[in-house]
């Protein structure tokens, strides 16, 4: 099997399906858990102390919907490459924000799946949160590189 065959191997389509459903599933669930509690989502966003309060509030209200939408596209397998680009960018932003909170000595929960805000100094999970988002970013990179996946609504997904 040469390299060219590897690229077109149907087996890779299954790997793509795994990447799509994992990345899309996590995004969809993360969005769904937060979309019904906008006040908490905005509070979690403010807790990073990175944005002016009113901007953080707007992002806090809007982000769960954006995650929900990206997750839906990935799960359905439509515009996989474009969705993977946005999902990967989002993960990089999350990693930077969490790292920044860590570096500044804040004690917050990432608020990724609801919750968020201040926690006791010993209860932060920055490393786990960063590693998880890094793993998801790798899946996004894979899907961007090879958006062709099994069981996609749009088989030749761009």
């Amino acid at each position, binding site marked *: 099997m040469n390299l060219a065959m590897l690229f077109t191997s149907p087996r890779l*389509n299954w790997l793509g399906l795994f990447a799509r459903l994992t990345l899309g599933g996590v995004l969809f669930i993360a969005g769904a858990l937060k979309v019904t509690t906008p006040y908490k989502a905005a509070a979690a966003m*403010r807790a990073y102390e990175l944005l002016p*309060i009113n901007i953080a509030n707007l992002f806090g*209200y809007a982000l769960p919907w954006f995650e*929900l939408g990206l997750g839906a596209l990935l799960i359905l397998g*439509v515009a996989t490459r474009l969705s993977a680009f946005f999902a990967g960018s989002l993960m990089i932003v999350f990693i930077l924000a969490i790292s920044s909170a860590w570096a500044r000595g804040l004690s917050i929960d990432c608020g990724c799946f609801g919750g968020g805000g201040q926690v006791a100094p010993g209860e932060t999970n920055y490393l786990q949160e960063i590693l998880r988002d890094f793993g998801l970013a790798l899946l996004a990179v894979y899907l961007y590189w090879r958006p062709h996946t099994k069981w996609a*609504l749009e*088989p*030749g997904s761009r």
Partner: protein
Amino acid sequence: MVNNKGKSSGDPITRWLVIGMVALVVVVGAGISIFNNSSKKTAVLPSAASVKDGYGIVFNGDLTPVIDVWEDFQCPSCKVFESTNGAALKALAVEKKAKIVFHPLSFLGPESVYAANGAACAADQGKFLEYNAFMYANQPAENSGAWSNEGVIATAAAAGVTGAEFETCVNKGKYADWVGNVGSEGSKQNVNSTPTVFINGKEIDRASGAYYSAPEFMKLLVAAGIK
């Protein structure tokens, strides 16, 4: 065919239909979230509420020091705060020793909204403090169905808040928009958890233990000039 080597990328109509629908849901949903969490100028305010005090229910508006209390009727920590320091706050309000502003938040769900609306209705009857203390003392499990409008009326009746006007106010959700405005103000003032209490605009440090210790809380009040 799994390997779609041609230039075709599936059915473009499906692609754009799905992208369009998803984008529509995202934009409309985000728009609703932003709209629901922004202040509504048309909101009916309870008579004791003051816009410049963040829509809070104000006691002794012209006194100092100023104590701002941000709580959610369904929040268990707020119940502990109330059982620890509620009586002291009530005494300050009744004995006119401080300005106290209550901000009932509602981020724990619909039953918080009913309870907060009821608080405004009780304030109109001059019974906010009674209602406040009794609701926290009899706090049910979060969103268990206990605090429907009927539940709020029944609980308030046990606290001595009764009357046709009060019941109509609760049942109509007269102050539901005001409840939303209080929440929006909480976001603007960076209230990230409940209870959050400010004394003269300074947030009480959680590490001080004052939220859940009456002597520590009293120390802060004395430091703020209360005898």
